[in-house]
């Protein structure tokens, strides 16, 4: 346990990424990522939920009996999601209307209960906080990347409908990348999400393989030297 926080961060962002490796929470991941703003909104909401639920679960971990832990976790997560849902309804009403059912559905996002069960219920509060933060960030980054890809290919824009999140002052941020772009409907529809996520997972596996090959090359060389 030399660098617990570094391990937690690496786990959440890369080697155990909830979306690319654990393939958890696919339903919101695939349904919502048709624009960057939607992805960011859902990602941040999920991250917040993860942090609060991880911290709470970690704080009560000594008092919850193992037989009833799952209902307790679900209750905690549901309360937190309700709070987030109501706040979004109050402050980001248009975005809330677009994300719709997927905000309350964060409750059913497997990532959250998985982190509560697998990590938060066994670790201290600061560690649980870091785990929630980085798992949430890892999820948000994948969401955001997929959302960007689908928005660029599907609509040919960046930061479309940004005003939903930052108000009308941010409207100038919307960029039209190509003049006279007809749009590519497939990228916006569900097949685009499956294809995009498939390519992202393949790309991550490719990078991992490259790294593994590089690390493998050194021990073999050393072995040869030792034999010599």
């Amino acid at each position, binding site marked *: 346990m030399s660098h617990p926080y570094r391990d937690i961060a690496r786990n959440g962002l890369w080697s155990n990424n909830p979306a690319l490796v654990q393939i958890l929470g696919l339903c919101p991941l695939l349904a919502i990522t048709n624009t960057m703003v939607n992805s960011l909104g859902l990602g941040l909401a999920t991250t917040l939920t993860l942090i609060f639920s991880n911290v709470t679960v970690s704080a009560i971990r000594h008092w919850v009996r193992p037989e009833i832990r799952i209902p307790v976790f679900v209750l905690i997560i549901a309360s937190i999601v309700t709070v987030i849902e109501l706040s979004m309804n109050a402050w980001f009403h248009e975005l809330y209307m677009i994300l719709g059912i997927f905000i309350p559905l964060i409750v059913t996002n497997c990532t959250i209960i998985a982190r509560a069960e697998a990590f938060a219920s066994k670790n201290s509060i600061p560690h649980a906080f870091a785990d929630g933060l980085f798992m949430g960030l890892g999820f948000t980054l994948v969401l955001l990347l997929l959302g960007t890809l689908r928005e660029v290919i599907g609509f040919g824009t960046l930061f479309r409908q940004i005003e939903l999140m930052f108000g009308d002052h941010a409207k100038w941020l919307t960029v039209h990348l190509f003049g006279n772009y007809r749009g590519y409907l*497939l990228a916006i529809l569900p097949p685009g999400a499956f294809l995009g996520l498939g390519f992202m997972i393949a790309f991550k596996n490719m990078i991992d393989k490259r790294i593994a090959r590089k690390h493998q090359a050194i021990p073999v060389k050393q072995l040869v030297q030792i034999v010599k």
Partner: protein
Amino acid sequence: MNPGISSSPFLNSGNSVPRIMLWVLLALIPGMLAHIYFFGWGLLINLGIAIPTALASEALMLRLRQRPIKPFLSDYSAILTATLLAIALPPLAPWWLAFIGTAFAIIIAKQLYGGLGYNPFNPAMVGYAMLLIAFPREMTTWLPAQSHHMAFMDSLRYSLFEVLPSGHNIDSISMATPMDIVKTRLGLNMTIDEINAQFHNLFGMLGGRGWEWVNLMFLLGGMLLIFIRVISWHIPVAVIGSLFSCALVFQLADIDAHASPLFHLFSGATMLGAFFIATDPISAATTLRGRLYYGAGIGIFTYIIRTWGGYPDGFAFAVLLMNMAVPTIDYYTQPRVFGHQDD
């Protein structure tokens, strides 16, 4: 003397992948000629875009996958995929439609699944379904069937720059397909006879003016394939039989609100699909009994999608749906091995 040692099979039919693909391509020619006669030069232009795209995407993917390029490029399978897709595209289409569709078919539906022999879905139909979902407007702008049409250069100009000769616009020269017309007008509570009268004998002799000849020519080519045993009769017969029966049942129930069985057989993609697309040896069922189920499923789904679905013709989706069912069909229809008991 060395008799030479090899394992079974000792007799083979002399068929090989390039030979089969070449025969299928040759059998498509009568249908393609009829297509050109009724719908103009567009098919040739689409072919001219689709075939090089298919070969280039195939070469690119084989290179990325570190496979030998030459044997796979010369087996005509990519050319066949491109040809089938080009026939399915509207004759007056911008060049990027054929380009994107073929590249998607070869790269995603064929090579990402492992190349020839490993693709569970028919690549041409995946490409077509993708285009139909992504570009519904471009994909449903057909020309009316007629024997005089745009000059080759005007067609080419539209394909490259989407510019029509002066005095024309796309709405004045294009027309929905008979399949599309029947669907939308039936939705408006018109009867079949009223539709036929409004569109001046839309149905021709068998089903769809012009379209019936294209379908008959594909039927001719398909018969040739069965005759020289490149395909077996099971799938086409099952497709046509089940589509015919479905249409007959509903027509007998209410003759005004349902198109005739002949219309279903000789309009849209039926004959091309039954003989050339559903029989794809890679994505179709392999057992003889399974082929009958597979074909019947395609016919039924085609009828369902044509009649109640959101798209005018459902053949591509029906084929893809049944492709998905092929492993299950093959599992349950394994023939009894001689000497073993049936269980």
